[in-house]
Each structure stands twice: as C-alpha cells, then as structure tokens.
C-alpha cells in the first residue's frame, strides 16, 4: 500500500563521534582518578556514595529503562547484596572485594529466580510481584535478628587500606568503588550497545515483533532481570562498605521508589542517566530532609509526576533528543535544495497509484 522511503545512512561523521566519545571518556576517567587528591575527605566519601547508587540505578535502568519492566523490588536486591557481602566477611572471613563478588553471584541467582515468573507477567503484575519483594525485606531482616542485628542494624568494618596507601581510608574505598563502577559501566555499555541492545529496544517497543525477529524474548528478559538485580546487589554491597553500617531502615519500599524517581529524572534507557541518578540519590535526599521530613517525599513525588508528564525522557534523554533534533535540522537544511524535485515525484506517484487502483477495480 504505502511506500516508505528509508533515508540512506549517513556514516561519514560516525567515526568522528566515536573518537570524541572515547576522548571524553578518557578525560572523565582521569578526572575521577585525580579527585581524592584535590577534594576534602568528606566529599570523597560523598562521591563514593554517588557511584554506589549509580551502579544500582544502572541495574534498574536495564530492567525498567531498557526492557520496560516495572520493578519495585530494587530495594530487596540492594539489601540482599549488602547482607550477603557483610555476612560473608563475618562468617567466611573473605576480603571485601571477594565479598562484593559473592554478593553479585547471590543477587544474580535470586534475580533470575524472581525474573523467571516475571517473564510472562504484564507490566502491572510484575509491579505487584516486585512490590511483594519490596515489602518483605524489613520483616525478614527483623526476623533473622541473630544474623542481621534486627531493627538496630550492625556496624560493618570498612575496608582497610594497605600500608603503602597513604591517602586515607575514604580514598581507598573510593578507588575500590571506582574500579567496580568503571568496569560495570563499560560492560553494560557494551551489552546494550551491540545486538543485545537492539533486541532490548525491540522488547520494549513490541514483544511480538522482537520475537518474530528471532529474539528469545523470555530468556533475555530473565537475564536482564538477573543482571539488573545483580547490579543492585553490587551497589548495595559497595554502599554498605562505604558507610560502615547496615540496617533495615535504609532498605524500605521508599528506596525502590527513590531509585525509580532517580532513573526517571536521569533518563530511562540511557547509560549516563544512571550517573545522574546516582548524583540525585546522594544529594537530593539530604538537602530535602534539611527542609523537613515531609519535604523529601514531596520532592520525590513532585519529581516523578512532573518528569513523567512534562519530561518523559529525563535529563539525559532530553539532552540527547535536543542534540539529535539539531542534527536532524542540519540534515534537513542540507536537503532543501533537492526538495522541489522530490515533490514532483510524490505527485506523480499519487496519480500513478490512483490509476492503478482504478484498473485493479475494473478487472
């Protein structure tokens, strides 16, 4: 019926863009490496917090932003990772990095288990199931008081720097978290950049279309849920080692909602949106709660509603859109010269098509 014209791919500037991106990334890594040398200890500690939140937010962004599954259970995996890491240090005597890796394995397994029934549930049902996870955390932690310290929580030994490291404990933790963060962001970027990324986008747009393209939709959904949950676990474990304390009050449903608010603000389905989310989670609650207890809820609620109704692409998504609109505009400007010719072709096509229709009907 209709003929859709596919514009030819403009591949020329691609190489330049990649080069700039690598350059920007390199500079960013250098800045991050140098940070603890120039900023005070407390700010190093805060930046570490930003990264731990960003890792967990990246996990939720995979599940929600890239695949479009609503998960309210991110707090549960954040908590599970934290406790797994802390308990393996206490009971297995492993070092902190190994503890974080154990947390990753445990949360990945539980994530896959939770994602398995989730794969055939529509958005709302998944939200309800994950809501169940979200509200189970606090009672479970309180129940297993002997291991978790119950409502009062536990003090956790922070990672201790080796003798040759002279910048102090906060900087040491900073570098440990930075290493995890860089590796994770790099891995996830490659994961969503390749053919998997297209498959994920396909699932979000239309599962039917994706599966007809040969994507094993269910398998991919379960894997993404597992990986996303794992990142929550890693983020949780890192956050707990950074703070030096673990307790159920930091793992309520409110944490999941905050994560959701943060990735919505940062930009659903963007890597850098998770970084914005990390900044948001580290700084907004403390400033908001300075203004009163009710205010932090109001801030989150207002931000969620405003973003979804006014700025559904989030900060990063909106910036990307502005950039791509600019590019489009430039392309359009380049094309205007050839436009007159195009018009006549369209007109010709219509007449031809009408004539063809008439003949078809007559026969």
């Amino acid at each position, binding site marked *: 019926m209709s003929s859709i014209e596919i514009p030819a791919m403009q591949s020329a500037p691609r190489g330049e863009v990649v080069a700039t991106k690598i350059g920007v990334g390199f500079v960013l890594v250098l800045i991050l490496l140098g940070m603890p040398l120039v900023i005070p200890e407390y700010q190093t500690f805060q930046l570490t917090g930003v990264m731990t939140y960003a890792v967990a937010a990246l996990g939720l962004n995979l599940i929600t932003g890239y695949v479009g599954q609503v998960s309210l259970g991110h707090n549960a995996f954040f908590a599970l990772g934290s406790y797994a890491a802390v308990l393996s240090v206490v009971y297995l005597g492993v070092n902190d990095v190994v503890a974080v890796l154990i947390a990753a394995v445990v949360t990945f397994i539980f994530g896959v288990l939770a994602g398995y029934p989730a794969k055939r549930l529509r958005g709302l049902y998944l939200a309800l199931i994950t809501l169940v996870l979200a509200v189970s955390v606090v009672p479970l932690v309180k129940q297993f008081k002997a291991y978790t310290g119950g409502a009062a929580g536990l003090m956790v030994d922070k990672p201790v720097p080796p003798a040759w490291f002279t910048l102090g404990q906060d900087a040491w933790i900073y570098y440990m978290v930075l290493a995890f963060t860089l590796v994770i962001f790099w891995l996830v970027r490659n994961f969503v950049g390749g053919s998997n990324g297209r498959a994920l986008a396909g699932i979000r747009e239309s599962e039917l279309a994706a599966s007809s393209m040969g994507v094993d939709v269910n398998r991919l959904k379960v894997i993404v849920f597992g990986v996303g949950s794992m990142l929550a676990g890693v983020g949780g474990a890192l956050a707990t080692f950074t703070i030096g304390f673990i307790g159920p009050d930091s793992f309520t449903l409110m944490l999941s909602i905050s994560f959701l608010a943060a990735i919505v603000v940062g930009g659903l389905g963007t890597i850098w949106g998770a970084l914005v989310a990390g900044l948001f989670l580290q700084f907004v609650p403390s400033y908001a709660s300075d203004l009163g207890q009710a205010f932090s809820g109001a801030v989150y609620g207002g931000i969620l509603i405003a973003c979804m109704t006014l700025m559904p692409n989030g900060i990063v998504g909106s910036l990307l859109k502005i950039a791509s609109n600019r590019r489009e505009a430039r392309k359009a400007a380049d094309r205007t010269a050839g436009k007159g010719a195009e018009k006549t072709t369209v007109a010709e096509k219509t007449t031809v098509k*009408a004539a063809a229709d008439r003949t078809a009907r007559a026969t």
Partner: protein
Amino acid sequence: MNVLEIKGVSAGYGRIPVLHHVSLVVGEKSIAVLLGANGAGKTTTLRAVSGMIKYTGQILLDGKDLKGRGPDQIARLGIAHGVQGRGTFSDLTVEDNLAVGAFRRRDKAEIAVDIDQMYTLFPRLRERRKQKAGSLSGGEQQMLAVGRALMLKPRVMLLDEPSLGLAPVIIDDLYEALQRVNRLQGIAMLIVEQNANLALEIANDAYVLETGSMVLSGTARDVSENDGVRAAYLGN
C-alpha cells in the same frame, strides 16, 4: 429539508489526507448510501460526522454546525454511529447494551417500550437478553449494534458496513429491519456499504467515493444504473 449536510469536508489521519472536499446530504426521513472501494474514505466520512476526527469544511445537523463538539455531545444531539465490526459493550448484557443506547433519553417508560420493540425487530436478541454481548455470534452482535444505535432515537443513524461478515439470510433480515425502522419511525440513515445491491434497493440517494473524492451522486436508481457502478460494485 435536510437532516445532515456535509459541505466540502477534508480530513485525514495525522499528516495523511484521506478526504478531499467531500459533500453529501441526507434528507429528512430518507436513506442515503455511500459506496466505494476499500480505503476510499467511507469510514473516515462517518468518523468526521460523529466527531471522532478533526476536519475542515462544515457538517450540519438540522442546520446546526457540529464542529468542535466531542463524540458524546454529537451523540446527544441525535447522531447514532454504529461502528464497523464489534462496537458492542462485550461485558454488558444484551439488555444493558440496549439500555445504554438510550443514554441521552430521559423518557424511562418509553425506553422500556423501545427495548421491547428491538426484541420484536430482532427476535434472536430477546432469547439472549441476559447474556453478555461478548458471547453473541457475529450476526447477533451486528443486530445488537444496530438495535443499540436505534435506541438513541437518533435524527440520523450512521451505519458502517452493517452486512460485513453476515450470512445472506441474516443480511436480508437486517435490511428489512432497517427499512421498517426508517418507514415507521422516520429515522434518516447514512449507510456505508461495499456490498451495494441491498443498500441501493432501500436507499433514496446514493454517493460514490473514490480515493477520498466524491465521483458520483444522485438518486439510488440513477446511480445503480450507472455502468461504472454496475461494474465496480454490483458485480454485473
């Protein structure tokens, strides 16, 4: 006096134009039929009339401009639109479907009488009155859709391919019923059909749309004698 007047209406979906300056009238108590191939713009014409899409030009009901009114307001003014396929409320019983059709009316006693009349018109519906509409067969749903449109006691009724997918016997019944309603209650009708024989038989006037433009109009008899129409729509 014309009940419905469509004057120079152009409309489309998004940026794709479908109708180009289409004009037609439906006279008081008369039946007009709108013919055309798939994609000619028949359904779009009906949608413009019932306020479901935006258009340029003018559409008048009893001389009153309909522009800018929503579908619910236009329905309350007296236009009933039986959409193509299943326009019934599948979770509601047959009886509730008919009752909802009378939403714009306040005459409770008469509504009950009219529901009974629909059952006389379509006896199958009486048998199924307590069943959910979703459980009816295609033909029964079509009858229910027509019955529900009639319950509105409209000034004019728009019907989109009422015979689509029905067995020939049922189509005959349906058209007989439409004709009876038109004669007894004086309800004007604008019927869109691909299967034109029966429609032209009961119609007073006929219009032919081709790729969004009106190419032929006249009395039903004149149009049915047109060679092109005979070849394209009447199968001989």
